[in-house]
Structures are given as structure tokens and as C-alpha cells.
């Protein structure tokens, strides 16, 4: 009996894990014709899909056993992603992208023909016109309706994984309704055929009464059950979240604490570790989602760039940098140059002025002007006294800003620290 397992197991299509872990039977959600049973089975058994389909078809011809079997599989086997992909390409002669796209169409035409042939055989077999035929048509109608609705249920489940556009959703609703209507028609036909059409009113009343009675009896229980279920789901989500937090805290914080214990004699290193950890945790706690992972990606807004630069300098030099950003704007070439100059200023501040306490970094976007100030409380220095061959400040900060059409001002007092002010006009909107 196939058991539901996490989807992850099914979606791992790489051949290696399939060898190691036992393969579970899933109905394939991709490229299926009806319920995906044949595809799933084929994937499970390692056979071409067509073979499985033919087997089902042949079984179907023998008094509809195939259909019954198919229905049972559909009902019992959970829907999964993947199923069989490799066999399909196995008997494809030309591994060409366009051919592959056309292939399903051919398959569907084939399936349609097979279905027609099957229907004709079935109809001639069961002699629709006869006494038994009176039951066959309603049964077919009901079967068709049930198939539609089940397929719908599959789609609903699949919608959890993939976003469906609104128009598709309307279509799905229509299909579901059509299924219900078909079943209803079939049931009515049964009643009519059985000659009880005359008492249809009575029957309907009785049926309604029974349904109402059941609803009254089971209603509260059902309501409570759904409430319990949703509550349980909520609890599970919370538990998951907690587990995630615990995992994160465990991974990074405990690791850092160990490092701190080992480096207890080195206050600079301890401070650096603690600051890095604080920043990461803050980032993780207060940013909605997706942050932390894209560390390697280039920042595309000013605020992000400033914070990133400050964090890197802080990590490298072990001096805390306090960042305040007012406003934000996208990063263009000129601002990128300004960011490089600012970074240089931060490095200088951390290197030479770090003993005086935290380095203050302030960035503001006001209208078209972007202003960045980097301030330390170190010993300060006299720019004119710096020898001419020391190009750090002149080239990397002042020169860079001027080349890109901005200005840089340096203020340094003997014991008031140093402040670098960088101002840049944003490039015109392009």
C-alpha cells in the first residue's frame, strides 16, 4: 500500500537518491491524461507509460475492470510531482526540443482514438439498447461526473504548489460544477429508468429529509472537526516556525558562543563576533523574508549598499559602525562610486579612529541629492600634513567623488575625530 510521504522525496528526480531510498508510488501531476495513475505507475515500475496505458485499456475492455482498477488507484495513491520523465524521452528518436513539445499532442490524439475504440467496443458489447442498457447510461454519466470532480480535487491540491491564474480558476470551477451536474443527471436518470418518476416528488422529499436529518446530526460535529483541523494546522505551523528559529539560533548563535569562549582573551575578536551575530540575528528577525540567503547578491538600493559596506568593514576591522539611513533610492553608477568612496572612508575611520568608539555612518536621500557622512571619534589628522604620495584619501575618496561629479569634504579636528562628507547628485532618471 502506498503511503503518503513528504513531497520532497517525490520531487527528487536525480537518479542517485532514487537508488538509495525506496521509491514510493505517486500519481504524476505532470503530463497526465486523466488522473496520472498510468504515468505514476510507469515511473514506479520503470516502464514506458504507453505499456501501462495499454494494460489498463485491455483490462477496461474486459467488463470495465480496468476502469475500476484505475479508479481505485486514483482514490488511494497520493498525487505527486514528477513521476516518469525519463522513459518518455527514452523512445524518442530525436532528442530535439521541438519534437519533445509535439510529442504529448500525438499521445493525446492516440489516447482519444483509443478511447473512441474502447467506447465503441464497450457499447457493442453491452448492447445499450437492451434491458441492461437502461442502467448503463446513467452509470456512465455518474462515472464521468465523478471523474471530473476527482480531477478537480487533484487540481485544487496541485494549486498549493503552483500558482494558477484567475481565468484558469474560473474554468476549474466550471468543470467542477459540470461534474456535479453530470452526477446529478445520472442519478435522476436512474430514478426515471426505474420507473419511479411518478413518485419523484416523494422520493426527493424523502431524500431531502434524510439529508437534512444527517446534516442536523453531523453538522455540529463536522464544524467542530474542521475547526479542530484548522487549529491543529495553525499549531503545526507555529511549531514549524519555532523549530526553524531553534535551528537558526542553534546553528549560528551556539557556534558564535563557542568561538567567543575560545577567544575570550581577545576583546576585539569577541566584539567583532558579537556584532556580526547581532546583525545577522536582527536581519533575520526583523526582515520579513528572503534576507540572509542572498548574501552574495549585489545590493540594488542605496540603503542596502550602505548597510552592506558597513557590515563588511565592521566584520573585517572589528570596530562597531552605527548606520543611520534616511530615505532610499535605487543605486546608479554615480551612487555606486559614492558608495566606494564611503566604504573607503569607513575603512579609514575603522582603522585610524576606531579607538574612540563606534563609527557613525549617516546616509540621506533628499530629493536628487544623496549625502553620506562617515564620522569617527579618533585622534583626527591634518590633511595638509599628510605627505603627497599618500593617495588613500586624496584619490579613493576626494578624487573619486570629483571624477563622478560629486563633492567630498573632510573635517578633522585634533581631538574631535574625523568626518568625511560625501555629496552626489543622482543620475537623471533613465
Amino acid at each position: 500500500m502506498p503511503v503518503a510521504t513528504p513531497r520532497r522525496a517525490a520531487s527528487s528526480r536525480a537518479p542517485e537518491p532514487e537508488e538509495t531510498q525506496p521509491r514510493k508510488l505517486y500519481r504524476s501531476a505532470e503530463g497526465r491524461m486523466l488522473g496520472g495513475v498510468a504515468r505514476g505507475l510507469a515511473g514506479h515500475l520503470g516502464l514506458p507509460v504507453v505499456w501501462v496505458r495499454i494494460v489498463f485499456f485491455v483490462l477496461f475492455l474486459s467488463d470495465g475492470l480496468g476502469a475500476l482498477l484505475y479508479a481505485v488507484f486514483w482514490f488511494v495513491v497520493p498525487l505527486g510531482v514528477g513521476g516518469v520523465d525519463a522513459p518518455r524521452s527514452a523512445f524518442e528518436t530525436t532528442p530535439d526540443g521541438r519534437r519533445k513539445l509535439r510529442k504529448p499532442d500525438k499521445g493525446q490524439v492516440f489516447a482519444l482514438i483509443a478511447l473512441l475504440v474502447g467506447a465503441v467496443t464497450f457499447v457493442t458489447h453491452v448492447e445499450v439498447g437492451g434491458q441492461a442498457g437502461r442502467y448503463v447510461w446513467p452509470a456512465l454519466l455518474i462515472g464521468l461526473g465523478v471523474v471530473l470532480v476527482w480531477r478537480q480535487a487533484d487540481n485544487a491540491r496541485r494549486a498549493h504548489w503552483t500558482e494558477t491564474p484567475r481565468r484558469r480558476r474560473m474554468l476549474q470551477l466550471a468543470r467542477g460544477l459540470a461534474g456535479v451536474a453530470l452526477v446529478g443527471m445520472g442519478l435522476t436518470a436512474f430514478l426515471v429508468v426505474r420507473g419511479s418518476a411518478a413518485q419523484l416528488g416523494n422520493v426527493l422529499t424523502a431524500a431531502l429529509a434524510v439529508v437534512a436529518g444527517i446534516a442536523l446530526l453531523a453538522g455540529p460535529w463536522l464544524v467542530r472537526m474542521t475547526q479542530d483541523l484548522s487549529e491543529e494546522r495553525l499549531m503545526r505551523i507555529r511549531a514549524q516556525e519555532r523549530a526553524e528559529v531553534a535551528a537558526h539560533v542553534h546553528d549560528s548563535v551556539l557556534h558564535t558562543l563557542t568561538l567567543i569562549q575560545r577567544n575570550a582573551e581577545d576583546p576585539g575578536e569577541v566584539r567583532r563576533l558579537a556584532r556580526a551575530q547581532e546583525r545577522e540575528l536582527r536581519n533575520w528577525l526583523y526582515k520579513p523574508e528572503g534576507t540572509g540567503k542572498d548574501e552574495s547578491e549585489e545590493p540594488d538600493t542605496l540603503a542596502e549598499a550602505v548597510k552592506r559596506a558597513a557590515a563588511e568593514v565592521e566584520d573585517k576591522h572589528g570596530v562597531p559602525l552605527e548606520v543611520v539611513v534616511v530615505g532610499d533610492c535605487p543605486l546608479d553608477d554615480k551612487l555606486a562610486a559614492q558608495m566606494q568612496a564611503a566604504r573607503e572612508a569607513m575603512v579609514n575611520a575603522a582603522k585610524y579612529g576606531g579607538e574612540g568608539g563606534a563609527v557613525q555612518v549617516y546616509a540621506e536621500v533628499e530629493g536628487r541629492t544623496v549625502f553620506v557622512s562617515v564620522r569617527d571619534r579618533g585622534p583626527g589628522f591634518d590633511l595638509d600634513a599628510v605627505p603627497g604620495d599618500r593617495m588613500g584619501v586624496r584619490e579613493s575618496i576626494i578624487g573619486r567623488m570629483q571624477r563622478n561629479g560629486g563633492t567630498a569634504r573632510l573635517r578633522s579636528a585634533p581631538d574631535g575625530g574625523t568626518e568625511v562628507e560625501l555629496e552626489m547628485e543622482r543620475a537623471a532618471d533613465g
Partner: protein
Amino acid sequence: MTETEGTQERPGRHVRVVLVDDHRMFRTGVQAEIGQTATTGVEVVGEAADVDQAVTVITATRPEVVLLDVHLPGGGGVEVLRRCAPLMGAVENPVRFLALSVSDAAEDVIGVIRGGARGYVTKTITGTDLVDSVFRVQDGDAVFSPRLAGFVLDAFASTDAPPMDEDLDRLTQREREVLRLIARGYAYKEIAKQLFISVKTVESHVSAVLRKLQLSNRHELTRWATARRLV
């Protein structure tokens, strides 16, 4: 209040303080850092770990300054501020609140300031600066950390189009300048030197910003917070 120029020496000054924080370790640390009444002039007269306790202790001891944590069991610092509103508004010996938090998320900061706190500093502050801030708050002035100044600037800057009502709730050019310097890490004294005004004037500018923040800028802040999906 004549000695505001020399904030480090306050002969004869004495301030009674209540610590509200749910971490006992932190309360102990702050107590150890600023609680030497003889040298700092700060006397810790009470401690509380949650909202109910805080309200009880504050009402009983009537301190001059409360160091208030933003995140507290029982509704947070904002709830303490709400329930202590009558004490804040008292004509004689009003209780003043200084928010002291590890969180520097904008919504926390703006929340307690609008609730009536006279200032906001983060827990990374040094002992000396904290004592300084306590005295400043006792004097009725506002204490802004660079980060808070940044938030406020952000709040006012994002609404560049002047609102329909009068200029009352706009920051003046001077106030903006002062805030900007605070955000850049300047101390009040340094700001005064930079702008050629007295420290007292700097303090009154900052107080004015705080008042505007609490009273008249509700709609701007709401808009700002909504735009950032903070509320």
C-alpha cells in the same frame, strides 16, 4: 539648570530612577553601571519586570525618570506609558520616561515616543551617556539617539508635499538640521558649536521635534507607517 554646558559634572544633582525590564541580568547590569548614587547622582528606587509590576512600582515610588524597556510581558512599554499617562501629565513631579531598548525597529521606536516617552536610547549606550540622558530627561528635554533621529527625519522627509493644515506640524529648517547632526552622531554640545547656538537652544529644538512627533504629526506618521506596512 545653569550647568547644562558641563554635563559631566552635576554637583548636588540627584535623580530617582525606576528600572523596567524583563531581564533581571540587564537590570542588574544597569544598576551596577549607573546606580552608584555617590558618583553618578542616580538612585535606583525600584525595579519591575512586567507591565503590572511597573505600574505599581511607579505609582508607589513616584520616580523622576523611568528607564523603560520596549518589549515587556503584558503589553509592552507602550502599555506602561498608557497606564501612567496621568503621572506624566502631573503638574508637580511629573514622571518622565526614557525608552531603553535592544530593538531599533522603527515601529517600536516611534510607538513609545508617540506614547509619551521623552527619549529613546539603545542598550548599546555607555553608562556615562545613559546617566547623561537620564539627567537630560529629568530636565524635561528630549534625548534622541542617532537612530531615532534618523527615523524621525525619515518620517518627515517622506511627506515632502506640504499638508493642507498650517506649518505647525512641519519641522523647521533648524530642527531638521539639528536632527540631521544627531543622526550623524554628534553630541548636543558639538551640535551647538557647529551651528553657533547654545546647548539650551539645541535642546529646545529637540524638544520641539518631540512635541511635534507626539501631537501634531499623527497623520503623517500614520501615512508613513502605512506606506512601510508597519501597522
